C-alpha cells in the first residue's frame, strides 16, 4: 500500500509539473504585452518598459522559467500584474469561496443523484423511471451556465425568492460573524450550488441506475429475495452497497468538473471564486494569476483521481489486494 501510494504521488507531481510547464509556455509565447489593454487607454512606452523590467519579463524565457519554478517550490506564486498584490493572497481569498460552492454542489449532486438512481432502478421500465430518465438526460445535456441563467430569471428575477448574485449582502453583513449573516450567505449560495448540483445529479442518477440494475441481476440478490427479505432491504442494503463502486469513479471525474463548470457559473452569479478570478486574469493578461490558477486546477484534478483510487481500496478489498 505504501509503495503504491509513493508511486502514485510521484506520478501526480510529475503531471502537475507538466501542466505548469505547459501553461508557462502557452502564456509566454502569446502575442501582446501585459500593459495597457484592459481599459483601452494607451500606456506611455517608458512606463511599460519599466514595468516589464520590474517583473523580469525581458529576460530569456529559460531563465524566467527556472526562476518561476524556484519561487514556486518556495511557495511563492509571484505578484499579480493587475491586482497589485501577491497572487497567493488573491487565491487564498477566492479558493474558499470556490470550495464552498463546489462542496455544496457535490453533496447536492450525490444525494439527489443517488436517490433518483435508486428510485429509477426500483421502478425499472415503468412510467416513473422513463419520465425521470428523460428528464435527467435533458438536464444533463444543458449548458450549465444557461441553466444558471434560467434559474436566475425564474427564481430571482420573477419570483424574487433569491438574490441575483454575489457572495453576501455587503451592507448588512460585511463579515460572517452572526447567525443571520450565515443564513444570508446560505441564501446567496443556493442558486449557484443548485445549478451545478442539478446538472451533476442528472449524470449521477444515470450512472447509479445502470450500476444498480447490473447488481440486481446477480445471484446473491436472488438469494436475498428468496430468503424472503423485504424488497426495500434487498435493494438498499444488499444491492446498493455493491453498486456504489462506480460512484467513486464518478466522484473522481466530477471533482474537476465542479471546478471548471464553476468558471462559467461563477461568472453568471458574480461569485468571487477561482473561476471568476481566472477569467478576469486571462482577459487582463495577468500572467502570474493565470499560471497559478492553472496550477491549482490541475492539482485538484490529480487530487480527485488520487482520492478516488484510495477510496476504491477502502470500498473494495479485492482492488486493495491487487494494487499492492
Amino acid at each position: 500500500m505504501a509503495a503504491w501510494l509513493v508511486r502514485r504521488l510521484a506520478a501526480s507531481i510529475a503531471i502537475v509539473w507538466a501542466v505548469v510547464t505547459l501553461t508557462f509556455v502557452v502564456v509566454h509565447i502569446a502575442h501582446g504585452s501585459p500593459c495597457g489593454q484592459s481599459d483601452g487607454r494607451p500606456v506611455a512606452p517608458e512606463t511599460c518598459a519599466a514595468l516589464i523590467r520590474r517583473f523580469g519579463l525581458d529576460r530569456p524565457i529559460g531563465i524566467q522559467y527556472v526562476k518561476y519554478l524556484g519561487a514556486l517550490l518556495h511557495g511563492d506564486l509571484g505578484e499579480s500584474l493587475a491586482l497589485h498584490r501577491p497572487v497567493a493572497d488573491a487565491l487564498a481569498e477566492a479558493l474558499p469561496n470556490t470550495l464552498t460552492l463546489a462542496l455544496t454542489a457535490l453533496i447536492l449532486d450525490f444525494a439527489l443523484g443517488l436517490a433518483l438512481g435508486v428510485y429509477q432502478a426500483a421502478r425499472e421500465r415503468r412510467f416513473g423511471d422513463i419520465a425521470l430518465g428523460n428528464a435527467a438526460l435533458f438536464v444533463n445535456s444543458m449548458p450549465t451556465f444557461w441553466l444558471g441563467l434560467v434559474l436566475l430569471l425564474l427564481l430571482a428575477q420573477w419570483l424574487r425568492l433569491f438574490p441575483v448574485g454575489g457572495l453576501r449582502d455587503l451592507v448588512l453583513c460585511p463579515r460572517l460573524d452572526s447567525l443571520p449573516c450565515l443564513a444570508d450567505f446560505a441564501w446567496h449560495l443556493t442558486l449557484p450550488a443548485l445549478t451545478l448540483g442539478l446538472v451533476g445529479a442528472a449524470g449521477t442518477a444515470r450512472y447509479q441506475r445502470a450500476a444498480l440494475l447490473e447488481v440486481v441481476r446477480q445471484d446473491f440478490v436472488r438469494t436475498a429475495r428468496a430468503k424472503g427479505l423485504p424488497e426495500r432491504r434487498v435493494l438498499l442494503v444488499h444491492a446498493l452497497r455493491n453498486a456504489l463502486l462506480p460512484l467513486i469513479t464518478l466522484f473522481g471525474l466530477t471533482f474537476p468538473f465542479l471546478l471548471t463548470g464553476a468558471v462559467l457559473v461563477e461568472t453568471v452569479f458574480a461569485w468571487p471564486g477561482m473561476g471568476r478570478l481566472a477569467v478576469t486574469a486571462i482577459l487582463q493578461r495577468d500572467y502570474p494569476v493565470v499560471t497559478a490558477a492553472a496550477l491549482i486546477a490541475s492539482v485538484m484534478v490529480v487530487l480527485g483521481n488520487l482520492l478516488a483510487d484510495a477510496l476504491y481500496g477502502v470500498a473494495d478489498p479485492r482492488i486493495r489486494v491487487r494494487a499492492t
Partner: protein
Amino acid sequence: MTVWNWLAVGGAAVLALVAVAEIRRRAGTGTSARRFFRHPTAAPALFVLAFFVTVALAAPLVTPYRPYVQIDIARLANHAPSAQFPLGTDPFGRDVWSRLVYGARISLGIGALAMLVAVTTGVVVGGVAGYFRRWVDATLMRLVDVGLAMPRVFMLLMVVALWEHVPLTVLVLLIGLTGWFGTSRLVRAEVLSVREREFVAAARALGAEPARVIFRHVLPNAAAPIIVSAALGIGNVMLLEAGLSFLGLGVPSPAPSWGNMIADGWPKMAVAWWASTFPGLAISLVVMALNAVGDALRDALDPRKETA
C-alpha cells in the same frame, strides 16, 4: 416570417421524418438495428438531429432575414415573439429565429469537425500505443495522463484570449486537439485485446505492414466504442463551444453561434427572456438527442456494456 418560410420549415420537418423512416428501413431487421430502435428515445432523437441539419442547410429558405441584419434597432429591439418574429428579436434588433438557424450551421459544424479532429487523433495515438506497446505505449500514455489532468477550459480560454483574433478553423483545431485523450485511452484498451487474436497473427504472418495491420485488421474490430464515444463527444464539444462563446472568447460576434447568442441576450434577460432562452433550449435539445443516439448505439453495437 412569410408563409413561404413557414412552409419551408414544415417541409424540413417532413424531410427529417422521411430521413428517419429511410434510416429505419435501410437498417433492416438485424439484431443491432432492433436493439437501436428499441430505445424509445432513439427515433425521436434522430428526428431532432435530422431536422436541425436540414434547417441549417436550407437556412436562406426557412428564415426571413439575414442573421446580421438589425431590422429596426429603434423600434424592433427586444420585440416579443410574434407572428413576424416567431422567437422574438434580440437587444440589437436582430431576428432570433434567423440567427438560431444560421447559428446551427456554426454550432453543429464546430461540434462535428472538432470531434472529427479529436477522434482521428485519438484513434491514431491509441492504435499506435496499443499495437507497438513498450516505450511507445509508455510515452504516449504519460502524455495522455498530462492531457487528462490539464484544466481544459482554462487552457482553451488562455490560448484564445491571449491570441486575440482566433479564426474559426484554429478554434476547431484547438478544441479537437485538446479533446482526444479519453478516446485514445479507450482505443488503446480495445487494441490491446484485439491484437492478441488469431486473425491479427495471421495478417502479420502474411507479411502485412504494421500500418496495414492496425488500420485494416485491428481498428475495424475496435470500432464500436469509437463510434459511441464520437456520438457522445459532439455534444460535449458543442457545450464547450457554447461556454467559450458565452465568455466572448469563442465564435466572435456578429457571426451567430448558439453560445454567443445566449451571451448577447443575457444583459437584457429580465426584459427579453427569449433572446437567451431559445438558443439554450436548442443546445440542450441537440445535445440530448446526441446523447440518446450515443446510448442507443452503445446498446446496438456493444451489448456487453448494456445500460437499459
